[in-house]
């Protein structure tokens, strides 16, 4: 039921999902052409979680991100040009080329940065929650992390702290069923990651993470709870990364995932599902969708152009920015 969400928001969400998808496809392509170095962890397939979880946020709400974080950056309102420039290692990038894919931060947009350390971001999000509480505003902090990260000690410590102090933090698990090659059932001893909320006496629920409306709905509740000072929530959003772990993963993860499984999940593509729904509910026409698609493609081309034309940092800039 999208009916409770107004048209404008629905279309915006759809467009953001599309933007994420196209951005990631382009980034992979550029990586394969050696225009982007390091590694990329594409979030293709997980767009509903990013957009569903970020749409209920305000610009002044905080977000803590993961290594698979391009989608969350975009959903939190990052500028594609500066993102792409960062991937190109250019001075005009969000981190002046110092961060790269795993460290894009956009403080003006409440994006506190991503993390190359699995589980490294959870305590930081709790801290953002402390900041909010101490300032006495009604902001919230959302913390993204993967299923694999729920086995890190920091998950436990951060949820405990947030629960104890009723911090306004929403813990959003992007549960794509694998931590690198490891299936969640071989790594998480609980039946559901949401069961772990019981250890902290906070609400926890498992959601279809490929259904953007489901994610959005639960997130709205969790955000309300947090803004009202009632403390944290754990949302376990079950989804799937179509591409594989990273740009170096053979056959998009075929060494540890079956073709059947991958095929089934492709069927459940969150973008396709949302589009079908929007069409069914007559919120969008095929034509509108096409125009939107063209706009998205253009914005990404523009970002690539910007990145390409931007200057590389000078070697001596390496010594700058160590301290504020």
């Amino acid at each position, binding site marked *: 039921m999208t009916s409770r969400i107004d048209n404008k928001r629905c279309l915006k969400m759809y467009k953001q999902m599309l933007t994420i998808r196209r951005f990631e496809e382009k980034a992979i392509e550029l990586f394969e052409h050696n225009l982007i170095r390091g590694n990329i962890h594409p979030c293709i397939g997980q767009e509903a979680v990013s957009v569903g979880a970020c749409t209920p946020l305000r610009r002044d709400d905080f977000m803590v991100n993961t290594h698979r974080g391009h989608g969350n950056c975009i959903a939190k309102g990052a500028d594609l040009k500066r993102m792409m420039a960062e991937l190109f290692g250019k001075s005009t990038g969000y981190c002046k080329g110092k961060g790269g894919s795993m460290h894009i931060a956009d403080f003006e947009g409440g994006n506190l940065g991503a993390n190359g350390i699995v589980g490294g971001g959870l305590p930081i999000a709790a801290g953002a929650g402390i900041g909010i509480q101490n300032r006495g505003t009604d902001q919230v902090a959302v913390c993204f992390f993967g299923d694999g990260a729920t086995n890190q000690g*920091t998950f436990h410590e951060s949820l405990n702290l947030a629960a104890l102090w009723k911090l306004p933090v929403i813990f959003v698990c992007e549960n794509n069923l694998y931590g690198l090659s490891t299936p969640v059932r071989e790594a998480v001893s609980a039946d559901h990651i949401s069961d772990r909320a019981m250890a902290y006496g906070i609400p926890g629920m498992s959601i279809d993470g490929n259904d953007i409306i489901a994610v959005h709905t639960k997130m709205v509740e969790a955000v309300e709870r947090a803004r009202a000072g009632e403390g944290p929530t754990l949302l376990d959003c079950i989804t799937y990364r179509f591409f594989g772990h990273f740009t170096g993963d053979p056959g998009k993860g075929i060494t540890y995932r079956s073709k059947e499984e991958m095929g089934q999940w492709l069927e459940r593509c969150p973008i396709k599902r949302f589009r079908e729904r929007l069409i069914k509910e007559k919120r969008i026409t095929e034509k509108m969708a096409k125009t939107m698609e063209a706009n998205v493609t253009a914005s990404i081309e523009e970002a690539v152009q910007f990145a390409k034309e931007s200057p590389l940092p000078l070697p001596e800039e390496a010594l700058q920015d160590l301290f504020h």
Partner: protein
Amino acid sequence: MAEITFVESLRMTLKEEMERDPSLMLIGEDIGRYGGIFGVTKGLLEEFGPQRVRSAPISESAIIGSALGAAMTGIRTVAELMYIDFTPVAMDQIVNQAAKMCYMSGGKAKVPMVIRTQEGGGRGNAAQHSQCLEALFLHIPGLKIVMPSTPYDARGLLKTAIRDDNPVMFIEHKLLYASKGSIPEGEYLIPFGQADIKRKGKDVTIVAISYMVIVALRAAARLAEEGIEAEVIDLRTLVPMDFEAILKSVRNTNRVVIVHEGCRRGGIGAEIAAQIQEEAFDALDAPVERVGALNVPIPYSEPLENAVIPDEEDIVKAVKKVLYRS
């Protein structure tokens, strides 16, 4: 000029800074009602309330990480780790997160946080409660390191640390807490990167930090009885380091002994010695000597602990060695 203890100096400074900056927050274990295991935060909970004096569960990673998150979002924070031996429990949040946040974000992230902790042996606390680990942090770009040796310095440096917009490791020493010193009435700040010559001398330079400054001063007094005038330089901050002060003294004395309580191998003396020979090779009349702990964990039993941790005698010997008088 009032005589107060090191602990009182720290407490007074925290209190003043909390009054000055209404956002300043403390976080750490047992820092509330209990006032901290060494009494540094006594009375602060009562005065500033539980949101600004956050007594946390035993979760060092969450303590440091949440201090970082609070700092990044505008809440100046002092986090306390009870023993420096527990920094390894939170090492990722210190080394990979706090230290790198500003740089990784291209200078955008502002991280006004202090990690207060204490180190050192001498009290039979054994291997996991007696270490001196400042050298680990010296190797990690992005952290400032402060190691005061007197109540006066502690106060001036803690103010500077709190007002700094970067992560600062503020490392105290358990044997200094009860030491007393004079503090002037008004406010003063001691800038980072300014060593303090705690004793003037012309025959040899002793570079020391933290509690070893006190031990070095005792050694210097003994040496003076034998007619050897040692200059004792208290570095006060390791990052930034006042290397100029060392060089200036060395160019005068031509002989150096570096003293720290941490393990000699890979200790801060290694870096300082390496730099001295790089910058003042021709000024040296003898190899730079290093005094540090033996290369083992700190043992519990008194004769063993005494054998491992450097003392006055070790410093005297090292000085005589560089003077070729041993």
